[in-house]
C-alpha cells in the first residue's frame, strides 16, 4: 500500500498508476471479504447446528442409550429409540480399515516422491497425487458400487460386497492422496544437511530414511495420519454408497454397516423440522463436529510440536 502511495507521488498525474492502485484496493477487499466470510460461515454453521441440536442433545437425548444401544429406530411410534452405537461402530470400523489401507500407501508414496524420485518423475507424481485428491467423493462411491462390490463378491465368495471392507478400501484410497501430500511436506521440512551428514558417515539411502528422516518428520507424519482419520470420519457420500448402509453391529469386515454421516445425509430430508428425529440427527452432527474438531486440534498440536523442535 505505502509502496503505491509513494509511487503516485513520484509520478504525478500518471493515470495507469491510479488504476493499478484501485485494482490493488479491490483485490485487497476481495481477499479480506473471502477471509472474513470463511470465519463467519464456520461460526454460523456452528451456531446453527448447536441451536438445532444442542438443547436436545444435552437435556432430552438419553446419552446412555445413544452410546450403548445399537438400536437406531428413530421413527418407531410411540417410543422411538435413538441408539447410536451401531453407527459409531460403523464409522469407526470403516475409518479404521481405511487407515490400514491409507497409512502404508500414503507413507510409501510420500517417501518415494520425497526421497527417491527426482526431476520430472517427481513432478509428474506430485501432479498425479493432486489429481487423485481432486476426485469427488461421489465418484469414489460409484467405484465402490460398481467395481469393488462385484470384486469382493467374486474374490471372497460372499453374497454382498457393500461392506466395511468395501467402504474401508474406498475411503482409504480416497484419503491417501491428501495424506501423501502432507506427509511429503513433512519429509521436505527435514533439513537436507541431516541426510548429507548421515550419508557421509556411510549410511545407505534407506538407513538415512529410517534412522534420520522419519524420526525427524515424526510429528508431521502423525499430523498427516490424523488429518486422514478426520477425513475418513467426516466422509459421507462414498461411505453411504459403499458400506451397504444397514444399521448393524458388525462382527467381520464382510458385514454391512451404516456410518454416522450417512445416517444424517439419508434421513434428514425426510424428517419434520423440529421433530425429535430431526434434533437427534443434529445431535449426531454435534458428535461428528466434536470428534473432527478434536482430531484437527491434535494434528495441529503435532505440527506445532514439529516446528518448535527446530
Amino acid at each position, binding site marked *: 500500500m505505502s509502496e503505491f502511495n509513494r509511487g503516485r507521488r513520484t509520478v504525478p498525474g500518471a493515470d495507469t498508476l491510479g488504476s493499478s492502485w484501485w485494482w490493488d484496493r479491490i483485490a485487497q477487499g476481495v481477499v479480506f471479504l473471502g477471509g472474513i466470510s470463511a470465519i463467519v460461515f464456520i461460526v454460523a454453521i456452528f451456531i446453527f447446528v448447536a441451536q438445532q441440536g444442542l438443547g436436545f442433545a444435552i437435556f432430552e437425548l438419553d446419552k446412555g442409550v445413544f452410546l450403548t444401544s445399537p438400536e437406531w429406530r428413530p421413527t418407531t411410534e410411540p417410543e422411538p429409540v435413538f441408539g447410536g452405537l451401531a453407527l459409531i461402530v460403523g464409522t469407526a470400523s470403516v475409518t479404521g480399515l481405511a487407515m490400514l489401507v491409507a497409512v502404508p500407501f500414503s507413507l510409501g508414496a510420500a517417501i518415494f516422491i520425497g526421497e527417491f524420485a527426482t526431476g520430472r518423475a517427481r513432478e509428474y507424481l506430485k501432479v498425479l497425487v493432486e489429481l487423485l485428491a481432486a476426485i469427488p467423493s461421489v465418484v469414489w462411491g460409484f467405484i465402490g458400487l460398481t467395481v469393488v462390490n462385484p470384486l469382493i463378491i467374486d474374490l471372497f465368495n460372499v453374497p454382498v460386497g457393500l461392506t466395511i471392507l468395501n467402504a474401508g478400501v474406498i475411503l482409504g484410497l480416497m484419503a491417501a492422496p491428501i495424506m501423501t501430500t502432507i506427509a511429503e511436506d513433512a519429509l521436505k521440512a527435514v533439513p537436507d*544437511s541431516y541426510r*548429507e*551428514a548421515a550419508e*557421509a*558417515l*556411510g*549410511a*545407505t539411502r534407506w538407513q538415512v530414511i529410517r534412522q*534420520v528422516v522419519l524420526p525427524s518428520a515424526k510429528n508431521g507424519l502423525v499430523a498427516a495420519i490424523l488429518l486422514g482419520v478426520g477425513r475418513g470420519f467426516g466422509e459421507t457420500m462414498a461411505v453411504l454408497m459403499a458400506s451397504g448402509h444397514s444399521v448393524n453391529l458388525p462382527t467381520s469386515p464382510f458385514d454391512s454397516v451404516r456410518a454416522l454421516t450417512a445416517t444424517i445425509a439419508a434421513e434428514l430430508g425426510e424428517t419434520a423440522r423440529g421433530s425429535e428425529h430431526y434434533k437427534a440427527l443434529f445431535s449426531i452432527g454435534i458428535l461428528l463436529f466434536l470428534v473432527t474438531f478434536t482430531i484437527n486440534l491434535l494434528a495441529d498440536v503435532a505440527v506445532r510440536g514439529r516446528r518448535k523442535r*527446530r
Partner: protein
Amino acid sequence: MAESRKAAIEVSGLNLWYGDFQALEDVNLSIKHGQVTALIGPSGCGKSTLLRAINRINERLGYVRTTGSIEVHGQDVLAEEVELTQLRKEVGMVFQRPNPLPLSVRDNVLYAYRLHRGGRSSRREEDEVVEGALTQVLLWDQIRERLDHPAIDLSLEEQQKLCIARLLPVKPSVLLMDEPCSALDPEATEAVEDLIWQLRGEYSILIVTHNMAQARRASDESVFMLMGKVVEHALTGQMFVTPKNKETADYIEGRYG
C-alpha cells in the same frame, strides 16, 4: 622430493561436470599420508567440489559426471564396484556448518560406529567408544554430563568438535574438512585448529580454508586452486614465502578477496 612416501590420496586427470558446467579440469594431486594439506583458492574455484568428489558425496545431486581417477591408499574409489559405505568409513568428512544429527550427543558419536558394526554393542563397550572419541577431540570433560542432551543444544564449537568426534570410532584414514571453522568465532576457530593439528599423523587431513593465517599456521603442504585447476602445490612454508606463480602470490597477498 614429494613422492617419497606412499600417497593417502592420489588424484589424476580428474574432470568433473555439474550438468554442462565443468567445475574441475584435469586435476592432478598427491596428498601425503599423515599430513595436513590445506586447499586454498578464491570462492568458486572448486575446492568443495574436489573434496566432495573424493568421498563421492556429490553424487547425491544426480547430475554430476566425473572422469579421471581418484585413489585412496591405492584403491580406485571411482570404480563402479566400490561400496560407498566402505568408502565413507575410510574417508570421513567435516562440513562447513556443524551438522550433528537430530539425536543425542551420545547417539551422534555412536552413529557411524553402530552403522558399520551392524548394530549396537554392549553398553560398556559403547561407553568406552564415546569417551575415547570425545577425549580425542578434547570435549570429554566439558560435556560428559550432557551426553543425553540433543546435540543441537551444544555450542557451535562443541558441535563441530562432535562432528569430528563421530568420525573417529570407525577409524577412518582420511579426513576431509570443508572450511570447518568458518561458522566459528576466532576463539573457537583456534580451538578446532589445535584439535586438527593434534589429529595429524594418525589421519591424513585435507582441509579447505579461506583463512590464510590458518593455512599457514596449521598445514604441512598447501594446494592453490583457481577456476577448477590446481595451480600450485608446495610445502606450506615454501608457498607462503616464495610462491612460484603470480596468481598464487596475488591470492596469498589478498588481491583476490
